[in-house]
């Protein structure tokens, strides 16, 4: 059976809202399930994910693949993710262009890569292996970053585009991440958007950041900011009305407030092509 199509503007499934969603079945175009929270096979957590997927189109979005790491992949992680995917039948699986583990430690945070040709080769090989393990094409997301490495000589958009082309994967463009990184590293976010191959982009993310004075921090703890809405409109014009998702992980609001934020993205879809 083919999964239902992912269309329009959805929200990230958060545990605080699951009972309400399952009880009321509100009209939500689609939901993104944070795969890392549902990876124990046969657990009650996974039961929830499976039940939600019975009523809504879903995607799986993770943070734990560690695609840019130099350590071998964690076999158990991929086995569990594949098992979850077999049960919830997501339209696609996404993770980040970053690394999270090294030296036997796991940061559970998204750490940036040096933007070099050597890193491209390494990450492309890893994404291909991940795609083989999961038997599907992956969707890769750009991360927000707060540092740049001495050895980086490519721009982030050159790096991201090259990885997507050579690994033959799709891209999840996080518009908030582009804005945050552009501020933190003083580059033009519009140039970033204009450099990404149109046919590679599958989805957008929107979220809120926090202004720390010296830098912007990607906190997912507040509404999408006005500059990010502006950048999102440019993204819609370039890439089309692609599926968009509101991420909100801290200070999680009511389901109604979250859906209202998703509705703003829907309105942007409509107005972008009016």
């Amino acid at each position: 059976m083919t999964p239902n199509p992912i269309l329009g503007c959805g929200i990230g499934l958060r545990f605080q809202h699951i009972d309400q969603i399952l009880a009321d079945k509100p009209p939500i175009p689609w939901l993104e399930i944070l795969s890392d929270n549902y990876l124990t096979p046969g657990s009650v957590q996974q039961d929830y994910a499976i039940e939600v997927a019975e009523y809504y189109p879903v995607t799986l979005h993770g943070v734990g693949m560690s695609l840019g790491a130099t350590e071998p992949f964690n076999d158990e992680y991929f086995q569990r993710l594949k098992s979850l995917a077999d049960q919830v039948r997501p339209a696609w699986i996404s993770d980040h262009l970053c690394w999270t583990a090294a030296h036997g430690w796991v940061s559970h945070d998204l750490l940036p890569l040096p933007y070099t040709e050597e890193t491209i080769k390494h990450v492309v090989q890893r994404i291909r292996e991940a795609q083989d393990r999961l038997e599907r094409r992956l969707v890769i997301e750009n991360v927000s970053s707060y540092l740049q490495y001495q050895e980086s000589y490519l721009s982030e958009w050159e790096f991201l585009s090259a990885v997507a082309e050579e690994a033959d994967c799709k891209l999840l463009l996080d518009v908030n991440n582009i804005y945050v990184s552009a501020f933190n590293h003083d580059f033009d976010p519009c140039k970033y958007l204009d450099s990404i191959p149109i046919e590679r982009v599958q989805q957008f993310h929107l979220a809120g950041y926090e202004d720390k004075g010296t830098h912007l921090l990607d906190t997912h703890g507040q509404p999408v900011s006005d500059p990010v809405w502006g950048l999102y409109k440019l993204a819609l014009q370039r890439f089309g009305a692609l599926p968009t998702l509101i991420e909100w992980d801290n200070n999680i609001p009511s389901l109604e407030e979250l859906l209202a934020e998703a509705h703003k993205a829907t309105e942007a879809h409509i107005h972008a092509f009016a």
Partner: protein
Amino acid sequence: MPLLELQHSLIAALFQRDQLAEAAKFVKAQGSLSSEQRVGIYRNSAHGILLDYLESLYPVCLELVGTEFFGRTAHSFIDQMPPTRPFLADYGADFAAYLSAHPALQEMLWIVEVAKLEWARHAAWHTVNQVASDFTQLETLSAEQQAELRFQLPASAQLLSAHSPIHSIWLAHQDEYPDKPQFDEIDLEEAQQVLIFREQRRLHQTTLSPDDWAFLNAVQNQATMADLAEQFADQLPWLFSVAMQENWIYSFTTTPDETKPTRNS
């Protein structure tokens, strides 16, 4: 510069403050932030993620010791015992043991016992589902088979024996219980035995009488029906009946426990 070296250096800085300067050598200084400050943003971010997670695991401990003490202790725990698996739900099991070594808590070890209870709740929630036995089948067993019966608690069952009233302390910090005990009226010297288990999507937590505690421990240790009859004698029908009514017993097996020495061995 090899990627491996860069990644080892940066992740070391996330969990060892004295490694920040070393990791900063890989990083550009930009604007008003030094390269070390930029690595520090990641250290704060990684610690922040894990602190938020530990606070969600140990909310009653957090209330008991306060945000500042909890934060300081959690940051120190994170540095000394960083996560080693990509499954965040596995992290934090050692936090109670870490608290137990804290000099400031030596006169308040009941807080450590509450931490153990909070981890037990987390562990019970994440235990895999299991299939319950059909207890009507018990009637079909021969007397010999019945004597060799072994029962199982729910796979999620956590039996805790504490020197302090951990269930009462935990209950006193739950907003949704209207009849909850007042914390300052709780006798912190009262020992309590507690059972935690999950039934579908509901977590149960209850105190046990000494007899129920002994019975459930015997069951968990795979005592046969014959063993239980010998140990609990006349009390057995009552103990068994309560355990069944409360869903403390979930399944049974008739297969002999091969790990147990036989009479002839």
